[in-house]
């Protein structure tokens, strides 16, 4: 897009690519520390009564699968291990295929049966209205599951009417959806809400965890790696951490190099009376 001063941009592109590819091919095996936001969710699920109903909303689209799929997989592993009854759903149309694949895959690994241990409710437009309506009656939001069978005909839905009968609501999201789940499902209806969010979104969730509006949250691939550490099942989160580490080092190096160059031009510029801003036209 631009002519460059100093390093050519293609060199930087190759640098990023290598800082990811090399650790992927030759893993280093860094270990991960666990933060309180992640530990709180794990503890909550551990303390939930066995076979609690859990609503899991896959509120993300293919753009952010790299961050959110590993979290969803880790949650599902833990929930199935705890014999929870998982109701999958999504508030974004692009989430249907993603949720369906992950639920099927993890249920097959854990040997879980459709309709008894897990369900897929499908997509419903208008997220906030759906969140509120499920505080009254889930079967009115989803009269049938994704495949057209009435909800009350499933054994696992017996006694599950609204958030009141659910142990936990989990939202996986790349948008502001977690804040809305906290606002509507938790504050208005008292549901316990846990979140898996992309790092971009997670940084905004700290005040919600601090205030108790969220049980906890996983932030980005690091959050997934932390959860995988807790359930002692390495997945894409832990596998991606090496590449994440090396490429962060690379980006920090770029920032430092760029600023050294900037400080140098600024210092030279000051000798020749400049405005002090970075206005030097680029060759």
């Amino acid at each position, binding site marked *: 897009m631009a002519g460059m001063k100093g390093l050519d941009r293609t060199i930087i592109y190759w640098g990023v690519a290598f800082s990811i590819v090399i650790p992927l091919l030759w893993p280093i095996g860094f270990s991960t520390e666990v933060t309180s936001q992640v530990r709180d969710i794990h503890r909550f699920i551990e303390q939930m009564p066995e076979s609690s109903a859990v609503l899991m909303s896959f509120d993300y689209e293919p753009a952010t699968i790299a961050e959110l799929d590993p979290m969803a997989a880790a949650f599902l592993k833990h929930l199935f291990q705890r014999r929870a009854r998982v109701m999958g759903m999504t508030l974004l149309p692009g989430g249907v295929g993603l949720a369906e694949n992950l639920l099927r895959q993890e249920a097959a690994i854990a040997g879980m049966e459709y309709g008894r241990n897990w369900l897929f409710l499908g997509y419903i437009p208008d997220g906030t209205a759906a969140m509120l309506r499920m505080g009254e009656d889930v079967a009115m939001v989803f009269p049938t599951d994704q495949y057209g069978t009435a909800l009350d005909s499933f054994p696992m839905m017996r006694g599950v009417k609204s958030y009141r009968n659910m142990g936990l609501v989990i939202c996986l999201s790349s948008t502001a959806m977690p804040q809305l789940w906290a606002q509507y499902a938790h504050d208005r209806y008292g549901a316990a809400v846990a979140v898996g969010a992309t790092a971009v979104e997670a940084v905004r969730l700290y005040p919600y965890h601090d205030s108790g509006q969220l049980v906890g949250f996983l932030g980005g691939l690091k959050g997934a790696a932390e959860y995988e550490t807790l359930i002692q099942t390495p997945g894409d989160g832990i596998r991606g951490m090496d590449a994440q580490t090396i490429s962060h080092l690379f980006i920090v190096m770029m920032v430092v190099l760029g600023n050294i160059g900037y400080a140098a031009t600024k210092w030279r510029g000051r000798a020749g009376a400049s405005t002090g801003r970075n*206005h030097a036209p680029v060759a």
Partner: protein
Amino acid sequence: MTYSAFSVFLSVLVATGAAAIDFEVVDTPHDGGGSLTLRWEPVARSAVAESVISLGLFRTDGSGEPRGKRADLAFGDSTFFDERLTNGQRYTYEIEAVFPSTITVLARAEGTPSLQWFRTDRIAVFFGVVLFTGLLLWFTYHARSGRQMFIRRIAGLEAVDEAIGRATEMGKPIMYIPGISSMEDVATIASVQILAQVAKKAGEYGTRLMVPNRDPIVMAVAQEIVKESYNQIGRPDLYIQDDIYYVTYSQFGYAAAVSGIMLRERPAANFLLGMFYAESLILSETGNTTGAIQIAGTDSDAQLPFFITSCDYTLIGEELYAASVYLSREPMLLGSLKAQDFAKAAVLALILIGTLLSIAGDTQFAGAFR
């Protein structure tokens, strides 16, 4: 202890009126009636006897209906909501343990559902909504009737004149990017208000202004606004429709095209004001490398860091609205800005009082804000 001995023990407990487990039935608080909340201490299988087959919940009401089973309970459960009940009627509940040969009542409790008219637990929210609505109506009314209201000067705005002046000196154009969102976004509305002022200034200096758009409706609005601004300063001749144009709806396509224009035309000043998404990075980076003065502003906090590090001045969040109000004095925006300001002052005062009281040992005040 064998199970039979244990169950005898339990029966004795129940018969003498002492429940084996804590069990309470209360009217579900703050609801429209018709529901009772049942709470008990969770029963672990081992605590009763290993041979317990199941736990059941039974209900008797005063209307003469026979005693009926309400639900099977799982070990570890501790709450149950019974719904579709008649307000004012008394209901009796029993939790039963089923053994291979006997059935034992573990606990008994009763309750009466009733209707509430007002959610007293939401009283703080109620006052919040009423007060804020009042503030909003009051300030909007006064803003419309033309009363002067003070808005502080926004630091980044001083740079606007400087940037336009510099473009004029260099004989280079100005580029104004009104974000990539639609007219429904408050940030876009604020942005086109600022555009009006920038267009006036550019017109006074006779400097060329380019406005690439991603939304066709925003483009139409921007054209109107720029034309009107030029008219107001008596320079309708400066208006060039082709300089306020539609690029493409594709997000990255837009970013690539605008970057290309920046490199070709080398505008001396870039304004990036409005709603931005991931493309903010590409736009501000290219602008930075062409050496333009860049003034940015958005309320998208994920994009703000990129603007702050690669632009000369950045309007942060609400500053964007405040800047647009400061420049345009648009009554509707002015009214809500003032209402929000006063609400903020109230929030601050309450936080201070609440904190002082908590330090003094009174937590009731803070507790009222639920």
